[in-house]
């Protein structure tokens, strides 16, 4: 009687240990499938090659340093997403021979000049705000993706940090969008981030 009780306890312990070992493996498998399903929407975008055009300030009185900072940060952030085979700079002669090329056009819509000092002293005022319209176009001018994106600095950081936040948001918007395969006519996707 006593021996069977021991066997029962031992069996239960083995079951608990086996269950504990199996659970993390199941969790890993679940996250793995979630990951693969979240990656699938834009995986075909890796076939495209993108060229980043210079920032168009439009009618907005945006300083040259801000335009350059947006442009350079966009190049950085788009490279980090790994959604494109290659990221070309504006004017790069290598892009002229590429067939599957998308051109990223960025036009500044609004800009509110902030002040780092005012942010530090008042906390609630002095924010730097940027809003741009980003368009991904094919070489023949067809718009594949269009987004209006914001980039702000409200509390900490220099004014130029707004350009970094903006570029990150643009890259995020492109990463989340479903881009059609090259050669297939795509409906225009528009929205705001």
């Amino acid at each position: 009687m006593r021996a069977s009780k021991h066997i029962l306890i031992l069996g239960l312990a083995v079951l608990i240990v086996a269950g504990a070992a199996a659970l993390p493996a199941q969790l890993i498998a679940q996250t793995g499938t979630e990951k693969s399903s979240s990656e699938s929407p834009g995986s075909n975008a890796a076939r495209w090659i993108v060229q980043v055009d210079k920032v168009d300030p439009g009618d907005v009185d945006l300083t040259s340093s801000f335009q350059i900072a947006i442009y350079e940060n966009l190049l950085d952030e788009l490279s980090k997403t790994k959604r494109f085979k290659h990221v070309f700079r504006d004017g790069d002669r290598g892009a002229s021979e590429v067939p599957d090329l998308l051109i990223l056009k960025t036009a500044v819509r609004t800009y509110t000049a902030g002040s780092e000092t005012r942010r530090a002293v008042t906390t609630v005022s002095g924010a730097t705000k940027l809003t741009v319209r980003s368009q991904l176009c094919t070489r023949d001018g067809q718009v594949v993706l269009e987004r209006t994106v914001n980039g702000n600095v409200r509390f900490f950081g220099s004014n130029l940090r707004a350009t970094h936040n903006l570029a990150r948001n643009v890259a995020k918007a492109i990463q989340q969008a479903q881009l059609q395969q090259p050669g297939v006519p795509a409906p225009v996707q528009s929205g705001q981030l």
Partner: protein
Amino acid sequence: MNPTAIQSKYLADGYLCAFYLALGLLLLLIGCSTVFAQDASSPTTSPFSAHATHLLGFEGARGNAGGTLSIEGDVLHFQKPGKPVVGIKIASVRDVVLGEQSKQVGGLPMTLGTAAVPYGGGRVVSLFAHKKYDTVTLEYGDANGGFHGAIFQMNKGQGSTLRDQLAARGVHVTPNEVEPAKQSTAEVASESK
């Protein structure tokens, strides 16, 4: 002992001492003049050299890195201490824009420190812990024709020196950029509708 002989011996020793002293001073003077001559000749080999913070965009240099920005011959160099020199040909620079920026001194530790001061005392510290800097924005092209932009932050006055040095070498200079006044955000509201 003849007192006259003793007196003349001391006199001869005194002259000898003064002679050696004068010789030593002369040698010291020659040594100093050689050192100063070397210092004076160094600017002719490097007409511009100043400490700068590379904010972004200079090919091969890390962002937000402090180092020395110098002009040597027809090349603009940037070197972070302990790192290899990176540079671009001055002929590839298409435009230079000088701007101005006010930043809090002390970086992130200072920001966190002022935030930790009780009774809002940090705001008062922030009000006086700001310094004005020159920002130099360079636009240049690479070997493939790709457009690049780089932004450097320098001590007040040094930015204009660099701009003048580059202008003397035939680089196009855009008049100083001025931070625009606060703009209306009405357009943002209409965009988001």
